[in-house]
């Protein structure tokens, strides 16, 4: 599954994860999925309420207690996907409107009066909108660390003289933004 994710064979909307083994194995798999750079919701399938609680401990998107029923499944899908639809944001790219899940955006850059949005799947969307437009959208995930850059905090792997993203991209802090960025760093850590 991880190979399929990494090679982009599938872009999953949701992962159902049967809980059979111990906490360690689950945590390891979850971390691998998270590190692969795909913010996919994960739902635990478990036969015991104790394990369901562990799902909440590791911040799974939900747990389904076996035996599974159509009603339980319907409820969890409705909850996850209606949240996702509400969160979509509108971006204008070369006069076309595109609706994106903010989780798909890794970072945005402003260069020569153009705005470039770099997505997790490798696509780059260009347009004339300013970064402020993206920054003002009701999404707490974006951090302005530089006049020309807006970074999705979910893709930050490390912080040094700038943000180091999971794919190794370095976004340096802009002059005068270091203090504000320190507040951001505290919020992340």
């Amino acid at each position, binding site marked *: *599954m991880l190979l*399929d994710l990494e090679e982009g064979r*599938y*872009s*999953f*909307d*949701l*992962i*159902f*994860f*049967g809980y*059979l*083994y111990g906490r360690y*194995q689950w945590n390891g*798999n979850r971390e691998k999925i998270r590190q692969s750079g795909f913010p*996919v919701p994960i739902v635990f*399938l478990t036969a015991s309420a104790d394990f369901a609680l562990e799902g909440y401990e590791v911040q799974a998107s939900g747990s389904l207690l*076996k035996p*599974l*029923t*159509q009603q339980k*499944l*319907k409820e969890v*899908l409705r909850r996850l*996907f209606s949240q996702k639809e509400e969160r979509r944001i509108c971006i204008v790219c070369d006069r076309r409107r595109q609706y994106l899940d903010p989780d798909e955006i890794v970072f945005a850059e402003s260069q020569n009066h153009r705005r470039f949005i770099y997505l997790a799947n490798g696509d780059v969307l260009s347009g004339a909108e300013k970064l402020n437009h993206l920054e003002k959208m009701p999404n707490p995930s974006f951090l302005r660390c530089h006049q020309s850059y807006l970074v999705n905090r979910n893709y930050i792997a490390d912080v040094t003289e700038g943000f180091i993203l999971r794919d190794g991209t370095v976004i340096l802090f802009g002059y005068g933004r270091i203090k504000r960025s320190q507040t951001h760093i505290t919020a992340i850590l």
Partner: protein
Amino acid sequence: MRYFAVCDDMAAEREKLKKLLLQVQACERNEEFEMIPYAFGE
């Protein structure tokens, strides 16, 4: 189309979930689901 990965070692459990997803799909008019099954470690 929504793609779901189902990671479970027990084939019977994966099959059960697939059936349920098909039932839910039949109720939701504008939704299409595709389930991709995996065992742990795959």
